[in-house]
C-alpha cells in the first residue's frame, strides 16, 4: 500500500531529523577562535580573601589602594568609589578628608549661575585621570583604559586573570609571535596584543608597613583592592550568610521537633482488631 510507504518514510525522515538536531545541539562544540585569541587561562591562586569564612585583609587593601593611587590611577578611573567608602576600610576619616581635599570639584551654580571650584569632600567620587573617554584614548594611542571599579567582576577569571595579566608580561615576545605596532605581548590577554604595557616593577612603590614591594606583591595587593572595589559588601555579606545558615538550622531543628511532637500520638497508637463474635463461637 502506498499510504504505508508514505507513513514509513515520514517516520524515517523525522527520526533522522531529530538525530541531526540532537547532534547540532549536544554534539561537539565549535570553536571559532584560536587559543591565542581566547587568551591563556589564568593560573588559579589560593586567594585567602575569597574563602567563604574570610574577610578581606585590610592591610593588603590599604597597600593595594596605594598601588592603585600611585600607579594605575595615572590611566584608569575608579569612578564608582567615593572617598567615604574608603573610611573604615583602608583610611581613617582624617586621611580620607585630606585626600579628598587634594582635588577640586564643581560647586552647584550660585545665584548668578556661575559654577565655581571647591575642595573635595568625603561624599565626592575619586576623580578620573582624563576629562572624557576621547581624551583617555588620545593619551593612550587610541586604547581606552577601562574603569577598574568592577573589573574583577567584569572579566572571566576575576582576581586570577588580573593578577596573571599584571605579572604575565614576558621579557621578549616568544619567537614567531606577531605583535602589532603600539601593542605589548601578554599571553593572558585575549588576542595577546594589549595596549597597556607592563606597569609593575620591583620596588615601584614604597609600602609604609615595610612590606617588600615586589611586582607580584603589588599585583596581589592591587587585585585584592580591586576585588574590594567591585564587592565592597563582601565582608558583611559573608558574615550575614553564616548567620542566615545558623538561624535556618535552628528553625529547622525546631520544626523537626514540632513534627515529631505532633505525630507522636499517631506513631505510638496501637490499633487492635476485635473480631466479631459469630455463631456463638469466639475466634481469635
Amino acid at each position, binding site marked *: 500500500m502506498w499510504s504505508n510507504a508514505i507513513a514509513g518514510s515520514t517516520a524515517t525522515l523525522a527520526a533522522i531529523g531529530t538525530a541531526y538536531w540532537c547532534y547540532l545541539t549536544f554534539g561537539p562544540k565549535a570553536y571559532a577562535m584560536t587559543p591565542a585569541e581566547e587568551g591563556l587561562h589564568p593560573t588559579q591562586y589560593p586567594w585567602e580573601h575569597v574563602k567563604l569564612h574570610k*574577610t578581606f585583609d585590610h*592591610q593588603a587593601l590599604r597597600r593595594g589602594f596605594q598601588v592603585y593611587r600611585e600607579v594605575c590611577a595615572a590611566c584608569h578611573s575608579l569612578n564608582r568609589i567615593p572617598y567615604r567608602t574608603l573610611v*573604615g576600610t583602608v583610611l*581613617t576619616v582624617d586621611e580620607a578628608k585630606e585626600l579628598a581635599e587634594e582635588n577640586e570639584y564643581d560647586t552647584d551654580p550660585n545665584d548668578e549661575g556661575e559654577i565655581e571650584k571647591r575642595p573635595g569632600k568625603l561624599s565626592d567620587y575619586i576623580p578620573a585621570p582624563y576629562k572624557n573617554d576621547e581624551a583617555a584614548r588620545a593619551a593612550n594611542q587610541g586604547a581606552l583604559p577601562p574603569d577598574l571599579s568592577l573589573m574583577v567582576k567584569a572579566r572571566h577569571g576575576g582576581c586570577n586573570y588580573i593578577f596573571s595579566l599584571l605579572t604575565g608580561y614576558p621579557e621578549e615576545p616568544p619567537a614567531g609571535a606577531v605583535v602589532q605596532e603600539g601593542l605589548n605581548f601578554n599571553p593572558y590577554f585575549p588576542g595577546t596584543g594589549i595596549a597597556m604595557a607592563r606597569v609593575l616593577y620591583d620596588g615601584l612603590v614604597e609600602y609604609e608597613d615595610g612590606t617588600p614591594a615586589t611586582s607580584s606583591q603589588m599585583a596581589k595587593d592591587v587585585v585584592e583592592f580591586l576585588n574590594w572595589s567591585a564587592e565592597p559588601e563582601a565582608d558583611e555579606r559573608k558574615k550575614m550568610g553564616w548567620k542566615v545558615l*545558623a538561624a535556618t538550622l535552628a528553625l529547622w531543628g525546631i520544626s523537626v521537633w514540632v513534627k515529631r511532637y505532633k505525630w507522636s500520638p499517631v506513631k505510638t497508637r496501637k490499633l487492635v482488631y476485635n473480631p466479631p463474635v459469630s455463631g456463638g463461637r469466639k475466634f481469635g
Partner: protein
Amino acid sequence: MGVYSGLYNTFFRQNTTMLATVFLGAFGLQLAFDSGSTLIWNNINKGRQWQDIKAKYVQNAEEEE
C-alpha cells in the same frame, strides 16, 4: 507541674506577660545571637579587619597634628 507549671504561671498565664516575654525574649535572643556571631567572626578573621589595624593609623594622624 514543678518547674513547668511555675514557668507557665509566671510567663504565659496572662496575655500581657506572655507578650512581654515574647518581645523581650526576641530582643535578648537577637542581641545574644548578634554579639555571639560577631565574636566568632572576629576571632576567625583576627588581624584581617580594619578594626584590627586602625589603631596604627589613628595614632599616627594624631601625632602629626
